């Protein structure tokens, strides 16, 4: 049995310890907001938070994230849209939308851990692929989020508090 803490709930799963978290989320738990893009940690579509940090779930075996707080896009907005999600609406960012769960998770974790990332820090940590080319709007949204930062957390507050 694998026990996972996902979006504040304890889930028992009879699965192989080496199953990537992505497929446990999508196929076993029906949490389809986390997307499959490449399977080799090369696109970021599968990004989720583990203890508030962004990880690529397609290459993360479930055995490695037992006893952690896992947050998916479904859990991120459980208490209402976060500032990042609101900025995504304000800047009308998503096109096809497929990459955006991962983008939002990656940007949220970055801004939570680094209040004022410079261009290089953003470039280094947001290496997610968007085939629709929403990058220019994402850059503007990130700049706005940095400039207008409030106390509202960027990641699921319960997941971070428990670290």
């Amino acid at each position, binding site marked *: 049995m694998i026990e996972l803490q996902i979006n504040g709930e304890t889930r028992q799963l009879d*699965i*192989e310890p080496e*199953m*990537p978290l*992505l*497929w446990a989320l*999508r*196929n*076993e738990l*029906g949490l*389809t*907001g*986390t*997307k*499959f*893009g*490449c*399977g*080799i940690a*090369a*696109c970021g*579509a599968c990004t989720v938070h583990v203890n508030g940090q962004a990880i690529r779930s397609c290459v993360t075996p479930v055995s490695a994230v037992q006893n952690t707080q896992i947050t*998916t*896009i*479904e859990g*991120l*907005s459980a208490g209402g*849209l976060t500032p990042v*999600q609101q900025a*995504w*609406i304000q800047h*009308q*960012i*998503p*096109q*096809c*939308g*497929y*990459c*955006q*769960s991962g983008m*939002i998770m990656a940007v949220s974790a970055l801004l939570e851990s680094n209040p004022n990332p410079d261009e290089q820090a*953003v*470039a*280094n940590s*947001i*290496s*997610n*692929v*968007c*085939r*629709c*080319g*929403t*990058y*220019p*709007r*994402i*850059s503007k949204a990130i700049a706005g989020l940095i400039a207008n930062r409030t106390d509202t957390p960027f990641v699921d507050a319960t997941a971070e508090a428990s670290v």
Partner: protein
Amino acid sequence: MSISRRRFLLGAAVVGGGLLLGYASTRPSRQSIANRDYAEDGQTFLTTWLRIDPDNIVTVIVPHSEMGQGVLTSLPMMAADELDADWANVRVEQAPATDLFANGVLVKGFAASMGFAAPAFLNRTMDFVTLKAAEIMNMQITGGSSSVRFTGEMGMRAAGAAAREMLVKAAAQAWDVPASEIATRNSRVYHEASNRSLSYGELASAAAQFEPSRSPVLKRPDQFTLMGTSVPRVDIPAKVDGTAQFGIDAMPEGMLYAAVTTSPVFGGQLQSVGNKDAALQQRGVVRIVELSDAVAVVADNYWRANKALALLQPVFSSTDADNRSSTDIFADFDAALDNGERFEDVVVGDAGQALASTADVITANYRVPFLAHAAMEPMNCTVLFREGRCEVWTGTQDNLGIRGRVATVADLDENSVTVHPFYLGGGFGRRLPMSTNTIDQATLIAQQFDVPVQTLWSREEDTRQDYYRPAVSSRFRAGFDSSGNLVAWENAYIGKNEPVEAAHIAYSIPNQKIDYVESPTHVPFGAWRSVAHSQHTFFLESFTDELAWKQQQDPLQFRLSMLANKPRHARVLREAADKAGWSTPAPAGRARGIALQESFGSIVAEVAEVSLTDDGRVRVEKVTCAIDCGRVVHPDNAASQVESGIIYGLTAAMYGQISIEQGRVKESNFHDYEMLRLSESPEIQVVLLESEGASIGGLGEPATPPISAAVSNALYALTGQRVRELPLKNYRFLPPPVERGAVDA
């Protein structure tokens, strides 16, 4: 297909106490192959529908797929504007892809699928069917940048205007006042003189008694209230909280997952499969399915299916193409261009004679590789066969086409197939119905089960089993007369593709000869965002730039000098150049390049400003784009489509390369089929231009073609190195500029 069969139909009915208004057009598909395979009697139908319910909710049903282009917002806006509907009370639904085929069953099936009794259906011939409409209709799936310019302009607006007229008539009758005294706004009808008003919902069923007008009066642009504004897109909220459902997210009860390996060499057949026992013993594995050219493992979890698949040892037959490489293919192209039969594309004047009499003939050979689409959502399709019926869950650019395809493969009547539409995680031409290998596999695999099976491709399979943008070689010769006028343009290229005008030039050159030569390859090809424009604009606009430098003319002025008869083109060029600061020198270490193209009814000019990294790679700092798309329906969405098109084209220019080795595709995933990322994304400025009286142009594709030439031209200005083959990742550029103007053919 004759024009007369492309008819428009319009009908109204009382349904559920409200008004249901339908509009349809025959819809020959984009390519003849689609027509042949998917359309009955050469025609299929698209419908647009408007429903007004007694509670005053207006529902617009959109017959196109949402793949990020904003069609679920822009089309309803067009209907709602003509209807004078209150946008806050407009709902949007995607049309179900059931029973929409063929004249008689069109409305009946559609209304039935929404739970209504079949309304009487009235055949009408809309008066505004013009030749132009017929021409546009040749591209009428979600593709060809056609949704707004055709379905919107001809369908949505007409439906909205016709419904408004019917509501006004109903109010006039109810109040016994002349229709001319009646005004409409915010989903209500007003008679100001008597201070009376009624909601559309209250009038809907009375309005449905009237016949919709054959030629409803459309608004003038100055009367628009929604068109031209940037209302928030209706699909975005679900795309920020993870609730948007893509094909891959379908989870019908009891679903199994299929992972597939297809013959890596196109055309190879499956001969045997080794190590089946080991695979079958893996946890969760249900069955191994052998298809003619592929093997699949079906399991209760995709990861398990894929893991077991890796244990199999499939053997595929050898083919004639087993030793073919990209090098061989380009050598064939050269041989064909040297000796192959030439087919005429454009002949103006006598280019051969003109070239013979010019002192200096400029020649250049260009080429570009195959490209994959690499939509973010890997190809997938979920199919269930049960009790003689079939259900399909997938995101596709043509739900009706997919229904037809599944029916054909499964040998079922189309009416036995139900397609559930989903959002597309990227289309770009990959999810068109003529590119059906995933659909065919999913159908054949699921046929062996009585539970739903999702066939999901790995990224590797997605990259290696695409319908690729064709590789193309293109050769040019040009000549100037003694006063420096460009008098001859000769171009020969490989492979005529769509759209037919892709290799045609806007510039007035008195002698032109454009030919093509066929040199088929074994690599499957399909439509790739902007289709043949993406290759040819690189060729045409790079070579035009070569000619400008050769004459030591400013690339902008050189182009303008040949556009005296094309004022819209000239304006777009000037506008892009102005906004990019063309007349002022670029900042130190940077240079600018410009390119122009008309495609899908829109005219686009782009200026790229580039610099070099320390290791000699190109960095695109800034792109300024001016686009004249006739009229802008949704400015913010228009800008976002243009930004998207530029990034898509820029990714191809910088990284795009699918190589054939030993008959198969070498690249497999994002590590070797690289993508532009945030860190390399340029600042993009978009200038939207309108042209009064011009028909609406496309937006999803036209921004893609010019960017590769704009960047290459900027690189030439910066380094003196002319790029005649993409992608740019294969080059290291050397600053500072060497002597310019030399054309090293």
